[in-house]
């Protein structure tokens, strides 16, 4: 049995405690946006946020989580595909096959929180998810575009408040 807080909802899951979070999300909760790519924390396809930290869900058992930890999957990143990263991805047509993109988007969204104006070196360091279609350059451009838009939105907000 595990109690997990996923996308703001508490789920009681009847599963062996050593089951990786990835498979509980996919098979017990039924959210399939989070992908299986390697199962050994090497590819990033399974990236979710745990209290905002990008986490490779294939390699952590459900027993290592409490219901206090907020787990967010790609389905919970925004209600209407409006996260700045998602908007930038749409504008630049980043995905090819798309299979890695849930993980890429979750990693990129966390990167923007850590580094609101990321340098190329920071992007290289934080964005270690694999994309076999080779969308890396558009991912890089997408991160920068999202950062720019988010900054613009912030200064707009400030201006309005002032």
């Amino acid at each position: 049995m595990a109690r997990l807080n996923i996308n703001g909802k508490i789920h009681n899951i009847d599963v062996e405690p050593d089951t990786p979070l990835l498979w509980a999300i996919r098979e017990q909760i039924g959210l399939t946006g989070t992908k299986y790519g390697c199962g050994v924390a090497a590819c990033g396809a399974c990236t979710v946020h745990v209290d905002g930290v990008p986490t490779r869900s294939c390699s952590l058992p459900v027993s290592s989580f409490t219901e206090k930890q907020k787990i967010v999957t790609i389905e919970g990143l925004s209600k209407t595909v409006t996260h700045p990263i998602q908007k930038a991805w749409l504008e630049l047509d980043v995905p090819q096959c798309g299979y890695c993109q849930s993980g890429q988007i979750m990693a990129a969204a966390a990167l923007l929180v850590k580094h609101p104006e990321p340098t190329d070196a920071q992007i290289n360091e934080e964005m270690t998810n694999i994309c076999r279609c080779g969308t890396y350059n558009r991912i890089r451009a997408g991160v920068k575009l999202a950062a720019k838009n988010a900054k613009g939105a912030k200064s707009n907000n400030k201006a309005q408040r002032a």
Partner: protein
Amino acid sequence: MTIAQKLSRRGFLAGAAVATGGLSIGFHIPTAEAAVGDTPEINAWVVVKPDDTVVIRVARVEMGQGTLTGLAQLVAEELDADWSKVTTEYPTPGQNVARKRIWGDFQTAGSRGIRGSEDYVRKGGAAARLMLMQAAANQWKVPVGEVTTSKGVITHKASGRSLRYGKVALAAGKLEAPKDVKIKDPKDWTIAGKPLPRLDTKMKLDGSQIYSIDFKMPGMLNAAIKETPVPGGKVKSFDAAKAEKMRGVKKVLVIDGNAVVVVADTWYRAKTALDAVNIVWDEGANASVSTASIKAMLTEGLDAKQAFVGNKKGDVETAIAGATKKVEAVYRYPYQHHMTMEPMNATAQWTPEKCLVWTSTQNAEAALATAVPASGLPIEKCDVIRMNLGGGFGRRSSSHDYVRQTVLVAKEMPGTPVKLIWSREQDVTHGTYHPTTMCKLTGALDDKGNVVGLHMRISGQSILAGLRPEALVEGRDPGTFQGLNAQGPEGQFGYEIPNLLVDHAMRNPPFRPGFWRGVNNNQNSIYLECFIDEMAHAAGQDPLEFRRKMMKNYPKHLAVLNTVAEKSGWGKPTAPGVFRGISQHMGYGSYVAAVAEVSVSDKGALKIHRIVAATDCGHVVNPQQVAAQIEGSFAYGLSALLYGEMTVKNGRMEQENFDTYEVMKMADMPPVESYPVPSGGFWGGVGEPTIFVAAPAVLNAIFAATGKRLRDVPLKNFDLRKA
């Protein structure tokens, strides 16, 4: 008789389909009609719904390369559709069989998605437009010549009337198909040729796109599989006592004598239980094969007497004997794995009346042809429903082994849908690998440094011998010579060399080969383009000028080479420590060239600063997607160059997952400046071609930087410090 059948009788659609050849299925072909959706179609390619939604049928498959959007653009262009109303759907191979292959070939490989079907899909769109116009003209009782179309609206200018497509679609579908269908000149395109956004991006941003691995059915079970690690091996015995008692496990079985399968309620339980099964393998004859033994086998072929000839001109032996300077080198290319992000998987449901398969495949017809014998049912009782692919790169066209296995398992559990997912470990160790070859090149230079003779002896594995031996031509695999053939629309050797011999000593190790993005062009372009570079240096000439001298009769090859030379500033100074390398190649109907700029640190660390790439693919249907394919090709090709190698020990592939089979990541990806330079008049492919020039351009730049000539990959195996 339906319009579709009339169309097919008329011949242009069916004719095109037949001309593309492909799979022949030796079964009774039922004539029963099977419509894809519920709304009546205008013809096989176009459905217009009452709300004006235009559904464009796509026979080829989308696997990331943008073909879905590109083909829809071509049909919508001829249809004069309102692009904002366009959606797509896949017909099934069963429907294609039932309708005498009205949609032609489903195979999505060889960079043929667009170029292999542009003609008949455009005619399909144009025919549908004429029928919509006719239906409106009939309703208005005016001559069809007086009506025009634009963005999904038919207008009769004289009377000021107009109708949306959705209003006349039903009537149009009942009309006879037009006899004469003209298609537009690409210069008049307004939808095709434009950098439109893809139709399928949004669902890839919120997890809602369903891939084959995500497919669910009520009552579905999940299966995990472990296949013999040594090719040709068998299951000798297995002990499932522990696994059978584990939670959720429904069944443990052996299929094809060479694999153990566990079926459980969830996949993770199936996989965990499979790990608890004690399997003893009968390893068979290949248990002692190793990378070294394969290399020895290939090395022997480099000087073997017998070889298949691919390209021959003049008398190469005499030219080499009389050379002022002789240049000689041996190159090698190792096994590569496709590493699609989505591992192989399929779902099947079997009853004595019907066998259905849901899977991601590059060739649903071949998937069907695999499912039929596995099911034991006649073809009209089987079908394959295409799911989205998490990458293909040739793996999902080379073999549908995963479909066969899934059907065999489902057959053991009649009525129950079963999804079989390969673990990444099963996937990596049971690939259809990029074949391994070696090449010995001998070049003859005269006293002016001109190339007067070249012998390329390729030794190594044939893809056809491994996958489709029936397609060999008197034992010879023509595909081995990709990019090195004397002529042909697919790929042409781009240099004038008076005495030339390209031949192949076929040596087939037991590991199953496959079509791997770029296929044999990958190593052939390294062999040729790096060796041309070697000869240029031996002659003391600039590698660009040295090439140009031999390319007068190959203006299209030369044009892309000149483009990258100009755009990269070839001959002009680079930043300190940065060096350039150049290469060109032709394949899949397109001409490509690249310049790479690299530096190598004192410690031997390689940095690729910039790639400048040019592609002449004749016509461009969506420029921003062409750019994406060029970038993606470089990522795939450079990944192989930097890291890619499957090694063999004790008859087994040694790498099992992304932790041991490293691939390129963000930090390694260079900026790619891509220049599509379509010269018109032909249709070349885009999904693969630029991969050919990625590795040789970088290898030549490394030589410029270090004086080291690397004739083997991947680079991670070698010390790149200055010679």
